[in-house]
């Protein structure tokens, strides 16, 4: 690589006069992160709602624990010059094994946990053997096990199987408090951090890792058993990943094969932000912890200030590049490296000219200006009371230190609306409806949620809203078991809770805005397919991901309904991962492998146009596409007749009705026992028990498609 080795830890740039203590504490310029954290606290403290409260401080730590454990395990690995990409997948595998041992094997929880940790050790040992015995590059080995672990988890569960209903004593580990305010898992994290720091910085074992990171060959000649030392580090990483999985399961109350997806990148980001060199030989536990908190604070702060979550990705990227650049600059201007193993860097650094330093400074300045400008824009937009909605009229923010309804004294009530995934066109159209309803009802609307399907992120957002203080929360639930605990907590704090699109547990919310039951969807889809193919022949399903809860529920009812049509056979269910191009390729294959298929039923919004394009390009006019999608996306295909029909409800109305229901709860218009809800222009909706009904699913086809625009 370009920089093939690094000099021994050198003091920070401006620390010439500092006491050695500063050097000892921050050998890798970790003070930069303290500045970042201080700035974040200052900005978010001013702009955010209830950011600077002790409750929030502890909540933030709860959110960081799982990734923090992975980051702690990755620190020694990166110090040795290695990497472990498989930790997130290990979490997924460990999570389902824990659930399986507890529920299906029937082991008591402590033993199940112990065995799960053993599994982590075994997974880590597999990496260790491949890396130290067979001398494979860690990047490639763990790239392979990244696929392997996740693949096994998906394979054995069929993506559908998940485990929940864990005992309360176990859930306390991830959801409970000690002394009413300190999250339980924080103790585990603190203990792990202290142990890691002691091990890495205060034992000869830990020091040996630095020697290995600088030069494995040199370390070997110095009498360090390199393979064994390195192997132990990967085994520990597997252990940490399985421990993180145990906490994750306790936190969400549910074990599924998608646990920890993408966590490896966030953990690596935290470690590198903390001053560790990716080439090895450098890095501290303190740095990692600071790196972790600067990211977690950023995400939490953006939530509480109502800024788009996408900003956090951009800012993290800028922060990452800026940090390593500051580091590089201070190394180049300060102490010239005296001894390096390769001479490349020494020569290049000796050649650093003032002009190059100037360029570097300029780039860093530009980077910090971007950060500063976005912070300024952020504060400004907050002052104007933007809730993220483009159509938001400016006004003053309600004083929502308490979270009781404040409509009486004229302030706008704050309704927070969460989709399953922000980028999904289905939810984007729901947001349009929600925005206009919020305007009409004089409600301040917050719109936030995960960028991709991610139950853990949903919890995080609700936690942030509770801390911020809102009047009502309306959630489209990705995962029932996972979110119910935190929704109950919201209700205890006096926040009205509505679920829409998909329900939580009944006692976790006040009302459910029900657009259509899974049964209704499954039955309507099957009936529609039966109508197209005359009740006879083969059909195939293109689903979202194989572990998508909604789709699997629909498929269950589709199979149930098929009993009514004995002439119909379901020949294949293929995944599309929510990717149009993948749906396209899968449909092409299905059409060739099962040439008798007459109907392709795609049950994820982007999959329907993908399937339709595949049918169109195959020239097969005898095959029709149906499924669940949005009218705009499918319009050209419906008009050309490739798509016979799509089944859906009016998603804009759904978003609007969710806002109306939440608002009616805060004003007291809607109470338990009501039988109808008046929603102005949209009409009156039926209320049955604790459900507000949107009406039956709707079939869009050539004749009515032009009446809809969403």
């Amino acid at each position: 690589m370009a920089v093939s080795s690094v000099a021994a830890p050198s003091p920070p740039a401006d620390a010439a006069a500092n006491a050695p203590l500063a050097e000892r504490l921050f050998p890798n310029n970790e003070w930069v992160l303290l500045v970042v954290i201080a700035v974040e606290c200052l900005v978010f403290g001013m702009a955010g709602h209830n950011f600077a409260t002790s409750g929030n401080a502890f909540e933030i730590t709860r959110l960081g624990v799982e990734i923090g454990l992975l980051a702690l395990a990755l620190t020694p690995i990166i110090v040795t010059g290695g990497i472990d990409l498989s930790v997130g997948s290990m979490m997924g595998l460990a999570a389902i094994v824990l659930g399986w041992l507890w529920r299906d094997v029937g082991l008591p929880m402590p033993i199940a946990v112990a065995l799960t940790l053993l599994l982590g050790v075994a997974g880590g040992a597999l990496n260790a053997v491949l890396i130290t015995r067979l001398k494979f590059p860690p990047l490639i080995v763990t790239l392979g096990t990244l696929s392997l672990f996740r693949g096994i988890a998906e394979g054995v569960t069929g993506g559908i199987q998940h485990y929940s209903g864990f005992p309360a004593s176990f859930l306390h580990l991830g959801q409970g408090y000690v002394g009413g305010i300190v999250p339980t898992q924080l103790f585990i994290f603190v203990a792990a951090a202290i142990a890691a720091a002691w091990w890495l910085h205060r034992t000869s074992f830990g020091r040996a890792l630095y020697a290995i990171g600088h030069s494995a060959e040199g370390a070997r000649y110095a009498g360090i058993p390199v393979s064994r030392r390195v192997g132990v580090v990967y085994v520990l990483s597997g252990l940490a990943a399985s421990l993180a999985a145990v906490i994750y399961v306790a936190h969400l109350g549910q074990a599924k094969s998608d646990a920890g997806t993408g966590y490896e990148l966030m953990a690596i980001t935290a470690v590198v932000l903390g001053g560790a060199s990716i080439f090895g030989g450098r890095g501290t536990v303190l740095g990692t912890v600071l790196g972790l908190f600067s990211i977690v604070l950023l995400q939490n702060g953006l939530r509480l200030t109502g800024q788009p979550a996408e900003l956090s990705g951009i800012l993290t990227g800028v922060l990452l590049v800026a940090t390593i650049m500051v580091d590089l600059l201070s190394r180049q201007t300060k102490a010239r490296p005296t001894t390096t193993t390769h001479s490349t860097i020494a020569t290049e650094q000796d050649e650093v000219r003032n002009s190059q330093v100037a360029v570097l400074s300029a780039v860093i300045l530009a980077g910090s200006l971007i950060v500063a400008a976005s912070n300024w824009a952020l504060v400004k937009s907050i002052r104007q009371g933007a809730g993220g909605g483009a159509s938001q009229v400016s006004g003053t923010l309600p004083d929502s230190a308490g979270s009781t309804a404040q409509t009486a004294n004229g302030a706008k009530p704050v309704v927070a609306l969460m989709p399953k995934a922000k980028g999904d066109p289905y939810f984007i159209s729901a947001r349009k409806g929600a925005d206009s309803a919020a305007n009409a009802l004089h409600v301040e609307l917050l719109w936030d949620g995960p960028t991709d399907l991610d139950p853990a992120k949903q919890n995080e957002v609700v936690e942030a809203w509770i801390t911020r203080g809102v009047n009502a929360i309306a959630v489209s639930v990705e995962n029932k078991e996972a979110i119910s605990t935190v929704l109950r907590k919201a209700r205890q704090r006096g926040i009205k809770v509505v679920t829409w699109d998909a329900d939580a547990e009944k006692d976790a919310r006040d009302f459910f805005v029900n657009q259509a039951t899974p049964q209704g969807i499954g039955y309507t889809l099957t009936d529609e397919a039966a109508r197209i193919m005359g009740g006879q022949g083969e059909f195939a399903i293109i689903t979202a991901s194989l572990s998508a809860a909604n789709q699997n529920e629909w498929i269950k009812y589709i199979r149930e309904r098929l009993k009514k049509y004995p002439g119909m056979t379901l020949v294949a269910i293929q995944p599309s991962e929510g990717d149009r191009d993948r749906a396209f390729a899968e449909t092409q294959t299905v059409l060739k492998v099962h040439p008798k298929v007459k109907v392709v039923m795609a049950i994820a919004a982007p999959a329907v146009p993908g399937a339709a394009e595949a049918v169109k390009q195959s020239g097969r006019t005898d095959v029709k596409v149906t499924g669940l999608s949005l009218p705009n996306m499918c319009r050209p295909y419906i008009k050309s007749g490739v798509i016979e029909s799509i089944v859906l409800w009016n998603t804009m109305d759904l978003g609007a009705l969710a806002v109306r229901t939440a608002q009616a709860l805060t004003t007291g218009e809607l109470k338990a026992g009501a039988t109808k809800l008046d929603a102005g222009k949209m009409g009156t909706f039926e209320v049955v028990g604790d459900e507000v009904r949107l009406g039956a699913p709707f079939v869009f086809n050539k004749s009515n498609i032009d009446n809809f625009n969403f």
Partner: protein
Amino acid sequence: MNRALAATLGRHKRELPPAAALVAVLLAVLMAAPSFFGASNLRDLALNNASVLIVALGMTLVILVGEIDISVGSQFAVCSVVAGLLSKAGMPIALVPVVVLLVGAAMGAVNGFLVGLLGLPSIIVTLAMLVAWRDALRWATEGAWVQDLPDDFQWFGLAPAAAQTLIVVAAIVVLVLGGWALRNLQVGRSLYAVGSDEEAARLAGIEPRRVVFGVFTVTGALVGLAAVLNAVRFNAVPSNAGLGLELTAVAAVVVGGTAITGGRGTVLGTLIGVLLLGTIGTAMTYVGISPFWAKAIQGLIILAALVADAALARFERHGSVLGRRAVAAR
């Protein structure tokens, strides 16, 4: 004749294990489901993998110089959306690929500047870019697709068959040109030099920093080209294109026998890697294996490629696969 054959085999011995695996998979499929080799399936496979191949070729260059680029998936998404927006704004379709190529090259140049010229570690820089480009795109589009494209967007306004040929030919041209340049041009050889020993390359009069900058820029341009070739197969552009493309590309390159540490590898190996990973999913459907196991099998292929590579290296060194343990620590 035999000697020439032996020389060719010797030169390509790193590609032998994946090639053998590919042949084995294809033979198994031939016996279980011969219809896999139908003309229309082969055409679809070629079209679906053409852009992956182009991205993987860029990745090969990056890995050859000892770096890595995990931001290609996010760059791909940005390029796809830009292609759609340009066409929708009325730019002639012939001009779109050129401009998108430049956009890709610009994004690659950002990586190249930070990695090559400033000397920052590529895995960190491209990790930052992976997150930043993807989130910036999400922020800008809010997930909305680019729809209502002009009629001449799909298939460049040509007949589908002509455009399909064009896409496959473009991928092959990039493949052949890349392979030829790497073997025969001075600039191509300099990639191997930099990847093998940067210091030696510098002393031999090569400017490693410029080579690295160039490689990232070219890779960005290739990603742009791949994005356009993929986008024109449809009449709308989704905003989440290229998710996970970086892992597919890296895996294909490594499975194809290119050393992740740089300096060794060929585009032929990458072609084999793309064919192996790109056909396995479809082959599974043909044979009737549940798609639930696709990821696990992909992981096994990567690990198997590694084991084969190590066995080969040992065979060379000791004349036997089970020779005494390697001396070097790493």
